[in-house]
């Protein structure tokens, strides 16, 4: 039995287990948010301005109805955060999936066929990554706002955000998949498939794709944290989710205005949730990266 096999059979470190539990809890809360949350922040009739700016229930002047207090519109912070977390995770996962799909497809094509197609796809990618993600995303939501009616923008905000983030992120998948595809392409089982006469599409999907997926999974996990943060940044800057349908970033932006008037909880509560979420995802991503890295496995 080698050291590698020994390592593979060992449990992940405690930090990873905790991160996994935190993430799992968040996912469950988010999926069942409409059932768990005391109120629906999208339903204007469910809250009233009378309850505005109440501190968390454990503080002086708190109200037992509002565990984490209320915001400037009288919305229960627990509910807003649950729904905000839901949107943040949804957009994060959506952006990662879209980027991975586009990136893996283009990476496979570039790596498998090589030549002119490869050069063109990769140069387009190079140009795209030379713009910062935030800048591109700001540009796209800006254009969308200018071209579409305010109502459409509000309705389609998550989709616009997903596209804006994915537009930059796919390049990383494409580069990794292209490199792995080139490696697999030179291996005998792919050459055997070619000699058998299988069509290119089948070789790419059936033979190469399953063998490059592990690296894609690792990048996807690490990028998930990045995508969530990008969305939060955009929403914080006002180019993301509207205040009527807030994500965590939107909540922090709203709370930011009250931070120095003593109403710290409106900004700090959603920010804490965001930090915990991103930290959990990152810890898991790092662990997966180390585990799938053959260079680290030898030790």
């Amino acid at each position, binding site marked *: 039995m080698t050291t590698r096999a020994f390592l593979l059979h060992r449990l992940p470190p405690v930090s990873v287990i905790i991160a996994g539990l935190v993430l799992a809890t968040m996912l469950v809360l988010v999926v069942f948010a409409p059932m768990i949350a005391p109120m629906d922040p999208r339903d204007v009739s469910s809250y009233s301005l009378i309850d505005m700016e109440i501190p968390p229930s454990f503080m002086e002047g708190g109200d037992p109805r509002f565990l984490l207090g209320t915001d400037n519109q009288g919305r229960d912070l627990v509910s807003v955060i649950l729904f905000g977390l839901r949107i943040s995770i949804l957009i994060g996962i959506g952006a990662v999936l879209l980027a991975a799909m586009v990136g893996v497809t283009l990476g496979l094509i570039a790596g498998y066929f090589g030549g002119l197609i490869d050069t063109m796809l990769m140069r387009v990618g190079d140009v795209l990554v030379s713009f910062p993600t935030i800048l591109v995303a700001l540009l796209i939501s800006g254009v969308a706002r200018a071209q579409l009616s305010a109502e459409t923008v509000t309705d389609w905000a998550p989709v616009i955000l997903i596209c804006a983030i994915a537009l930059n992120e796919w390049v990383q998948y494409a580069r990794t998949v292209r490199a792995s595809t080139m490696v697999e392409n030179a291996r005998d089982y792919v050459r055997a498939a070619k000699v*058998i006469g299988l069509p290119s599409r089948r070789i790419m999907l059936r033979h190469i794709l399953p063998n490059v997926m592990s690296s894609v999974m690792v990048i996807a996990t690490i990028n998930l944290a990045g995508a969530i943060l990008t969305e939060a940044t955009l929403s914080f800057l006002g180019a993301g989710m509207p205040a009527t349908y807030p994500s965590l970033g939107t909540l922090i932006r709203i709370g930011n205005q009250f931070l120095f008037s003593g109403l710290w909880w409106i900004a700090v509560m959603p920010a804490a949730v965001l930090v915990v979420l991103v930290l959990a995802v990152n810890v898991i991503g790092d662990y997966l990266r180390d585990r799938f890295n053959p260079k680290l496995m030898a030790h």
Partner: protein
Amino acid sequence: MPPSLDIKKLRVEYPLTNGGTLVAVNDIDLTIRPGEIHALVGESGAGKTTVGNALMGLLQAPGRIASGSISIAGKQINTRTGRTEGIVPGRDVGAIFQDPMTSLNPLFTVESQLCEGMLAHLKIGRRQARARALELLTAVGIPEPERRLKSYPHQLSGGQRQRVVIATALACDPQLIVADEPTTALDVSVQAQILKLIRDLANERRVGVLLVTHNMGVVAQIADRVTIMQNGCVVESGSAHSVLTSPKAPYARTLIAAVPPIESRLERLPVPSEETPATLNAREKVRSKTRQAAETTNDAPVLAVRDLCVEYGQRSFLPGRTSAYKAVKGVSFEVRRGEIFGLVGESGCGKTTVANTIAGLVVPSSGSVHFQGVALAARRKKSLRQSLQMVFQDPYSALNPRMRINAAIAEPILFYQLAANAAEARDDAATLLEAVGLSGQSGERFAHAFSGGQRQRIAIARALGPQPSLLICDEPTSALDVSVQAQLLNLLKDLRDLAGLSMLFISHDLAVIRQMCDRVAVMKGGEIVELAQTETLFSAPQHPYTCELLRLAPSLDRIIKTETTAA
């Protein structure tokens, strides 16, 4: 003088995660006197490399010396730490590893690699070290040693690099050299030189050499004594001559019998047959299927290659600036129906490029390939691709690691619509597995569950699925142990006989070629230098290069014979 190496009841264990232990080396005894070459022979997994690692203190972390003793030049090794008081690895024990491409650091010159050990271990200055390095390079027969001191490893050929490695091993006048497969990565001509060098150095410097190898020819050529290992145990030990000519243990006998002889052609290699009634039954099914496919065609050669040239070019971004390397320069040959045609040559002679061109993996720059009378273009008709299949060299990468075996075998059958539905294709896959000597149920597993030989059988079964008329075998057995190789060669012969298959058989091993092929072409530098019937070529070679290859190929019989006449 104490023996260079004295191993007594050595036992090396690896703890397993399930609490058990794997005994890699089980109570072996071994003594090497100064100036003696002792060969440690066995198939992969026999524990021969572990012995070498144990005495150099290179055992991997969980592995440990459980009991027994090792002494190097009369000094006892501490079995707990793997170190020996007064013995420094690199000074008193020199190591020669298998791959000369990786055992030198590419960022240092030959001089700095050679002097590094001397400066660390011998109390001498840089100038003395340099003088000694020069002396060593001359001793190992490197031309222009002055200039070569300044060279980087990539500027040397494989053989020269291995000579530098040997010089490094000798640098501090070791008592013992451990040579682990020192010539496996080298061509026969270079191998012959390196073996002679090791022999001469052992004689002159009175160094004991532990030669770890799987190649019986190498053993016959230079070893004084042989120890044959199987599953961590010593099966037989004695003088090289007596073990090779009259092995006593049954395993030693099969191992030596499995070595394909270069002097004569055998109908089948004498290894225990693995044919069961199920195998024969399955082969009968395969025969009845393929016959229908084969009978429709006429007598013309299956494959005709004319003036084939292949260039690997570095196309420049600017027009008109191309640098091309000619891998194949005008090769012509024919493969007749039912024939096994051999292509033999040293590494880099272009034989694999020829195979890849025929298979459509490489586009030729000029010349033509006619297959069943039709010119092959890069894009080919489905029926043509179907009748031409290939078996690759490395069984470890030739199967998709993420696919079950029966799915992998059924894939081409379904693709060419040779089975009505998936269930029928699965049955066909099971039949093919049985025909190559594996059980039909083994198809449920993934490739990693099989040994190298088994994987190569699976690769053959997969290639037979589309019912080809020509099978290209590119070094199909060079990655395998001799007994497995013998079984596979027998299997390929059987399949040729039953399916009327033609084969293009590529190998660097002349003995294998002699056993397998009806006609042979010898390639050198991208050209065919000689093409003849196998028996004619081996009994009366015409081209000087062929004679050279035949003379240098290490062979059991020849050496045993010469020694017998000498004695």
